[in-house]
């Protein structure tokens, strides 16, 4: 679950700061120890799959880096070529089945992905308002958002 997100890495950081062993093998030992501790804890829960979850998370990290780079290239092109080709809209996007923490993670990811920026969240937490730079077709822009959303749900929020 989201509460265990990066818990083994936090343990590794604890190990590093207390052992004072700031070397590459030291980091590896810390990560392995943290992974083992969380895996053992994980075995006692209803859905033990810490290893697979860590892999999925890693895959999302790689995917996230690629879209961050793509979003930068896109906006760099817009900035450096003369004239503007944006077709901006502020869209509402439903997030009512996510809790506050997940909404925040999704909002941060949306802001760092190509052409989108979160402007506001409704008071009841049910809607995100997203400024899209290229949203000539509204439904296409929404579909782009839900691709990221689904990926995040599948690889980070799920069991």
């Amino acid at each position, binding site marked *: 679950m989201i509460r265990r997100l990066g818990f083994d890495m936090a343990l590794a*950081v604890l190990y*590093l700061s207390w052992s004072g062993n*700031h*070397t*590459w093998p*030291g*980091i590896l030992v810390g990560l392995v120890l943290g992974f083992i501790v969380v895996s053992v804890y994980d075995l006692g829960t209803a859905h033990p799959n810490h290893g697979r979850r860590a892999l999925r998370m890693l895959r999302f990290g790689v995917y996230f880096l690629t879209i*961050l*780079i793509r*979003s*930068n290239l896109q*906006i*760099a092109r*817009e*900035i*450096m070529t003369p004239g*503007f080709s*944006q*077709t*901006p*809209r*502020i*869209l*509402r996007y439903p997030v009512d089945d996510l809790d506050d923490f997940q909404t*925040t993670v999704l*909002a*941060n990811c949306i*802001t*760092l992905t190509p*052409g989108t*920026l*979160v*402007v*506001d969240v*409704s*008071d*009841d937490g*049910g*809607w995100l*308002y997203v*400024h899209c*730079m290229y*949203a*000539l077709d*509204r439904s296409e822009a929404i579909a782009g958002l839900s691709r990221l959303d689904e990926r995040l749900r599948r690889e980070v929020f799920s069991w």
Partner: protein
Amino acid sequence: MDAIREIATVVLLVSGLSFMLIGAWGTVRLPDAYHRLHAASKCSTLGLLGLLLGAVVHIGTAAALSKALLTLVFTFVAAPVGSHMLARSAHAAGLEQWDRTLSDELAEDQGDHPED
């Protein structure tokens, strides 16, 4: 080996710096507050990633990596939140939007939220 490392350092530093420069340029050039925030939030995050990676490759110790990672985690959490707050206050203050903006559903919804 040292030459490769130096080249990698230079490439990372230069690309990080150029993204930051482009972001700064975009903050000046783009037409309204929201577009400027796009440039400011995305480019500075990737730019910082490049600079930190360059520093890690150059220094090459695990201590440098752990510090860089911690800095990155904080940036990836803080930079988008900062831009949300700016965008939110821009909208609350009623800053003028670019005249080619197609629709603003936040303005439509303000006051009452849709139930669909």
